[in-house]
């Protein structure tokens, strides 16, 4: 997470806002696209994010650091988007209910790193869309947007523990999927060889 930039008093609010646009539009779009897998909608959501933030500024809010604020708004908009697509929201609700506090392993950041080290990043990226929403969300935040567990917990309004557990489990799922993929490839190769 970037250190909070103190606003340059010489800049007008408009200038600061446009600077934030230029700085974060790609990252926000990437995040939105990975979450909802729809390019057009992702662009719209980024647009809505900026217009919403602008409305806050117009309302008299002084935004010291744009990045977390933009992510927060973006996250809310993505959740709204899920609600529109009912199948997602139901899944999410069910999953959220079933989240436990997690084991020691799952809460330990070093084990997350250890596990991540064993994974193929390229394959993991391709498999992201197959993860359930709440895991995909944290994985994207953690590894694409490079946010820390605390920032993620603030964004999705869950405890840091929950975030850590989800990241851990998400990675585990990815690993299983990668292995399954590998197994599948292996299976196909052997099948081919048999023929």
């Amino acid at each position, binding site marked *: 997470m970037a250190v909070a930039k103190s606003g340059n008093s010489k800049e007008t*609010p*408009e200038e600061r*806002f*446009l600077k934030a*646009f*230029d700085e974060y*539009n*790609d990252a926000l*779009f*990437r995040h939105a*696209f*990975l979450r909802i897998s729809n390019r057009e909608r992702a*662009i719209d959501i*980024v*647009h809505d994010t*900026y*217009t919403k933030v*602008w*409305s806050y*500024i*117009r309302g*008299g809010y002084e935004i010291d650091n744009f990045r977390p604020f933009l992510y927060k708004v973006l996250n809310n908009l993505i959740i709204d988007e899920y609600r529109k697509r009912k199948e997602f929201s139901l899944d999410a609700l069910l999953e959220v209910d079933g989240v436990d506090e997690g084991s020691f392993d799952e809460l330990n950041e070093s084990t997350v*790193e*250890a596990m*991540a*080290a064993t*994974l*193929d*990043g*390229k394959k*993991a*990226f*391709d498999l992201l869309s197959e993860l359930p929403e709440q895991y995909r969300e944290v994985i994207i935040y953690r*590894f*694409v947007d490079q946010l820390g567990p605390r920032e993620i917990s603030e964004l999705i309004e869950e405890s840091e523990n929950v975030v850590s557990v989800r990241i851990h489990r998400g990675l585990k799922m990815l690993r299983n999927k990668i292995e399954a993929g590998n197994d599948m490839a292996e299976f196909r190769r052997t099948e081919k060889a048999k023929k």
Partner: protein
Amino acid sequence: MKKFTKQLETKASVVKLSALERKELRERVVSYMEYHPLAITKVAPKVVKQPLLAEPFKVVHFNFMKGRILQWGGVTAALLMVVTPVLAERAIPGDVLYAVKVQINEPVRSTLAFSPYQKVEWETELLNRRLAEARVLAREGKLNGEVEVAIATAVKEHSENAKREIEELRESDAEEAALATIAFNTTLEVQSASLREEGALLATAEGAGTVTLLETVINETLTQQASEESNTTILSLERLMARVEENTTRVYQLLESVTLIDAETHQDVNRRLQDIERTVQEGLDLREGGDAASAPLLIDALERSQRLIVFLSELQVGQSAKVEKYVPVVLTPEEKQNFIEQSEKTLAEQRAFITSNSLLVTDAETVEKMQYALTTMASLKESLETKATFAEVQATYEEALAVGRDTIEFYRSLNIETDSSTSTPAIPEDTASTTDPLLDIDVEISTSTQLEIEV
């Protein structure tokens, strides 16, 4: 972990907006911002409307509604920018448009005065304008104490500005400063003279002593100027010429622009312009005698042209006056010759009349008086030889003629039967010589004082 993150990042970095998408998105956001601009949170400092000038001047506030100003924008702009200033030019204190004249027209015009000389000129012009306004007000009986004080203050300010400019000019260009001083002083003299005259005129009428304050201010400045004028700079003819030229050009311009000018005044002004040109020519003819010889003539021409400018400026504000008061006619050589001849003739007739009729008078006192008149006339005629300028000659002739006229009138009032040869110039010029012995008696007595006692 590093490897994983890096691999994931490289993959993820492919996911991004295309340049076109980014551009479009930015445009959408920017246009949203434009349609939803930030509310102006800071309350704009309230502009305190205060009268721009002291009490006697009215300040007009135009309150246009926003819609109206757009709707009638063109008309309003034309009205404000063209019609109003033009109308305002002739405004006098108390008029609605006077504020426009003083606050807008004149400051705008003053920006056109670049050189220090032009600045002096402009300040002088402003001074003239104020005084002319005062006169118009006085004539209309609207000049009360308050207005007069305001005008006097303005006059003082303008004259001080002019003086300051002259001082500044003196440091850089003494000659130019001298020229400016001439122009400025001439104006002051003219104004002072006409104010004095008017003061006398008004003293007899109702508004007694109304212009006295202004007169005091002007005279004050004039005396100050006179004391400072001691350092005389020798002026080059070229510059004097140039200045006269400029002034006459200005006179022509004014003559064009003043609409309320009657044919007679027009003719009179043209006559004065011709006079000036002649004087300049005379000055140039004298050039061989050195600059010193011709400079006074040119300075005279300059002063006269300045007076004409003052006169025309007055006309511009509706002041009616005779040119003669400002710039007396200068006679051409032929006219001068004519005048001398005519005067000689009349003088001879008068003397013939007096001489012949004095013989019929028995009363000793009357005879003495008539003899004395003859003597005075003769001595005046004699003194003509010593007069250097035509103006002096003219004055002498006029004096002599006046003496003659008065004596004749006195004689007629006695109801003595006049000699039949009243107007015959029977006794020609040489009779003058016969009175010569008489002349010697009073030779040391100043003619003018004698005349005053006598007439």
